[in-house]
């Protein structure tokens, strides 16, 4: 069997961050991560554990996306529940939220495979692990990452310029 305790300690933080960045929802990310570890528990021994975990988590996300409509209805209910206890966010929170929204938009412009490869790389997966998790050829990971990074930065900067132009217009 695989030592799930150790797996969890070693990979949970990275997996949750990866999923949060992918999904934009920390609670959801944690649920998917937990389900991934449950599957690891059932799976028994893993040969390439990190690649396996990230691949399974990625597939779970894909499955989840299919259930998205059901989720959304539920989330809408929850959001309503919470809205009653809202406190106004501070201005600095707003600014950081804006940065995050910009980053989110930029990330959304990437092709799914490029995005996943980049997010995995950020969690320290090496090229062979990324190749295994995404079923890419190892030789193409560098190209995939270079494309993803360029696209991400260019989109982000474009969005930033757009926003600045908007702000300028609003100010004048």
């Amino acid at each position: 069997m695989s030592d799930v305790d150790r797996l969890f300690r070693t990979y949970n933080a990275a997996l949750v961050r990866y999923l949060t960045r992918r999904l934009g929802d920390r609670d959801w990310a944690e649920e998917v991560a937990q389900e991934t570890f449950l599957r690891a528990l059932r799976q028994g021994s893993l040969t390439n554990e990190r690649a396996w975990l990230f691949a399974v988590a990625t597939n779970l996300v894909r499955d989840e996306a299919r259930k998205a409509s059901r989720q959304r209805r539920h989330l809408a209910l929850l959001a309503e529940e919470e809205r009653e206890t809202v406190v106004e966010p501070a201005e600095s929170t707003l600014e950081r939220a804006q940065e995050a929204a910009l980053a989110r938009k930029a990330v959304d412009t990437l092709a799914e495979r490029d995005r996943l490869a980049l997010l995995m790389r950020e969690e320290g997966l090496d090229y062979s692990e990324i190749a295994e998790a995404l079923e890419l050829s190892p030789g193409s990971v560098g190209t995939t990452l270079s494309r993803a990074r360029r696209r991400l930065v260019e989109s982000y900067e474009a969005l930033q310029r757009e926003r600045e132009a908007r702000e300028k217009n609003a100010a004048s």
Partner: protein
Amino acid sequence: MQHLDEGTIHAWLDGELSPDEASNVAAHASACPECAAMVAEARGLVAASTRILTALDEVPGSVIPSVPDIAPAQTVRRRWYQRTDVRAAAALLLVAGTSLVVVQRGANSSASRAMLATDDKGQATPAAGAATPESRTFAAPLRKEEAKSGFAVPRDQTAQANAMADAQPRRLQARDESQLLKEEAAKSRAADVASVLAAPPISVARVGAAPPMVTAPAEGRTGANAPGVVQGRVIDKQSGKGVSQAQVVIEGTSLDAATDKDGNFRITNVPPGDQRLRVRRIGYEAAAIPLSKESRDAKGATVALTPSQVALAEVVVTSAENAPTVATAGAAVSKAVAEAPLRVVRADSTGGVRRITYEVSKGVEVTLTESPVQTALERDAVRQKVAAPQSAVAPADARQRENVLSGRAAGAVASAATVAPNSITWTERGRKFVLTGRLATKDLEAIKARLIKMKR
């Protein structure tokens, strides 16, 4: 040799090429100015991507639940990062400088867990085990001997939860799982399942009362192997001197630290297990060493970094409109400062704050700090102070802004090292820049002019 393709450059920067391939790439990059520029650009893209992705960790914060309204049973499922005070702490950290963020990240999360713990102490004790995501999953498969009964826990839960899944949305299902854990823990010590949850030395109350990473020791591991502190020093392989501002990460975790000015680092709450320590620093090859039992002892690990094959100094970004015009632009400026090479010695970027240190001449460094202008109010104030020319600067190209910039090789600055720390501040396109160094204001101004020129 053919020019380098972008994928190869990224693979090289990511340390994913074989030694042979890597030395080929390094040789080509140092001989071919075009490819050197591409390498510089790629470095910029790598750093900028990381910065952008880090911003994603700011999970949408438009809804911050207030604490008092929540009934006790619900408080238990509240997670540490949802707490307003934790968010505030995180906000402070994000605003703070780069190295601070890196060093404090681990400390922050353990501190916040501790915060959570004290909270839960006041709550019903049997429930405490289910308080955090970590402990919830920890609770089941902790001990090797009881692996079988450990297996039984999640299976049971999954079966029951699955039965409910059709009727109930997933989010509720998660809550029910923790509810199950609670009930089982409370029900009986005799039951197999509960004995796993409650078995010494992990009394359920204890798990709740302190950071779970620390208090839940895995069976069969000695004290020396329990979660602990990893410390050590990062040195330059050639000079043997400490390397500051290197990023040290426990692979596969979010635990990291930056080295201090003597190259020392310290990471706490490191879980046991076979792990590797990865060290990165601009200007050096990335290094990774296994974390053996020895490196966890008091003496600590020493990591020697090999200076990067392509030292940043060799990356030259030339431009037709380089120095001559600049020298005339600042009439009062000493020619030496205006023409000395600007060599990048350090560059990092976190939480929207970017810091680049340039060497103006031997022993004379200036640091350019770029950060978002904090408030609309401050932005306006600064705008009014700054003269028109700066705001008229054309938007720098995305990549060039991150690029490693370096001037041409030229003579050194005459002296100036005796001047007290000095700084000038300006804003450009909504970003705040601070240039600090032991130089006279007019020299700083000259460097600023050159930097702006280079970024164009």
